[in-house]
């Protein structure tokens, strides 16, 4: 039975990749503006991407969106915020690793303080006290790290289950999984069950936070696929630029702050 299912899956995948690995047709070279647009869109395997978008969208409509709706209906906002905070706190190791790889010591410090404060005073991460104490959250993942190291994003990809991406971010996602200590602790059934619950709850949490926005986009966009592609790119770019421009100096609080101005001021 198992083998049958697997060979079916293989067949379906082969069909998908074989028949649908179509490439977008570039516009004729006689229309330079259209060519410029085509390059800017940077989506050479658009027909294939659209197939995966359709599949993901179908799965979302029957599984994830209803789950998110139930989640929102059953749990009040403060509880959902608490769940989100716990998940975000569990992501601290990966975040910290990437802060350091990005060469952003202040961000690494923020992440460390957030973990220490929220895990203890914030009761295992339920309450985000660190934010009110001057350590706000920020985004940090290996895709961003690679971007700050100078790697371009590459062509647009719409991945099964994972959604909008590109080679850089897809590879980054894999590295983040490897970087996550929870990938490596224990091999028992209980640990595995917890791991998968975390994946499931994360998905529902993330989806619930974007319920209204995604509904709105699907309602108002003429081409939702193109709109999600544009939004994904812009949002990633904004995250990367925010990290790039975060160059707060790392002066210890006990160091005489006025003296540092004299030392570092280029005008003196």
């Amino acid at each position, binding site marked *: 039975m198992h083998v049958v299912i697997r060979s079916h899956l293989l067949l379906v995948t082969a069909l998908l990749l074989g028949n649908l690995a179509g490439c977008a047709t570039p516009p004729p070279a006689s229309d330079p*503006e*259209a060519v410029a*647009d085509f390059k800017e*869109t940077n989506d050479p395997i658009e027909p294939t991407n659209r197939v995966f978008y359709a599949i993901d969208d179908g799965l979302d409509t029957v599984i994830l969106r209803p789950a998110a709706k139930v989640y*929102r209906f059953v749990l009040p*906002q403060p509880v959902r915020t608490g769940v989100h905070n716990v998940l975000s706190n569990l992501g601290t190791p990966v975040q910290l690793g990437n802060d350091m790889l990005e060469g952003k010591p202040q961000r690494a410090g923020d992440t460390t303080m957030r973990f220490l404060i929220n895990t203890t005073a914030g009761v295992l991460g339920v309450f985000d006290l660190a934010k009110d104490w001057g350590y706000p959250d920020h985004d940090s993942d290996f895709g961003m790290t690679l971007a700050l190291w100078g790697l371009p994003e590459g062509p647009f990809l719409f991945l099964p289950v994972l959604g909008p991406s590109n080679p850089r971010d897809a590879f980054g996602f894999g590295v983040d999984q490897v970087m996550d200590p929870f990938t490596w602790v224990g091999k028992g059934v209980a640990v595995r069950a917890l791991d998968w619950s975390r994946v499931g709850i994360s998905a529902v949490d993330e989806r619930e*936070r974007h*319920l*209204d*926005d995604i509904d*709105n986009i699907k*309602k*108002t*966009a*003429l*081409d939702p*696929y*193109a*709109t999600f*592609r*544009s*939004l994904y790119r*812009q*949002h990633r*770019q*904004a*995250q990367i*630029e*925010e990290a790039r421009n975060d160059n707060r100096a790392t002066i210890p609080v006990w160091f005489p702050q006025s003296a540092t101005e004299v030392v570092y001021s280029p005008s003196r």
Partner: protein
Amino acid sequence: MPNRRNLLILATATLLSGSLRPARAQSVADGARAFVKATGDKLVAVVNGPGTPQQKRGTLTQIIESAVDVDGVARFCLGRFWRTASPEQQKRYTELFHQVLVTNITGKLGEYQGVRFSLGRAQQRDEDTVVSSVVERPNNPPTNVDWIISNPASAPKIIDVVAEGTSLRLTQRQDYASYLTHNNNSIDALISAMHQQVAEAG
């Protein structure tokens, strides 16, 4: 040969304008900030206030038409296709764009009760002013929203809204561009699709 007095006047003027410029830029930014605050307060008051959806739509339309450079945004969103469109197509497209914009904004805000928004700082970026804010809607995480204001000194108008780093008008332009690419670059096809959108929204 320039005489010494003229040089002195020139130098003083240069110094003065140099020292005055930051102050002027700041007052311009503050003006834009006040403009966004006034517009935002009006929008929030209507959204949270009483009235049927139809009444709200009417009031929101007035606010949007007076605060947003809708014609400019419309032209931006059509991108390179604006120049290939006939004057008649441009006119019909722009008219429809006004309605689509109002429909979309009403759709985004209309269903909420208890929208709050708090203003952050305002800064000059080239000719425009960027005013930061945080918008809170019930059931949704707080969203960072930047308002891009053109002509902040003379006739302030909103030309773009950037939510979590995503520009509304750029996203709209790429949506239209993709639609046009997949419909033989036919502006009439776009116009009829927009027409249908407005009709469906009622």
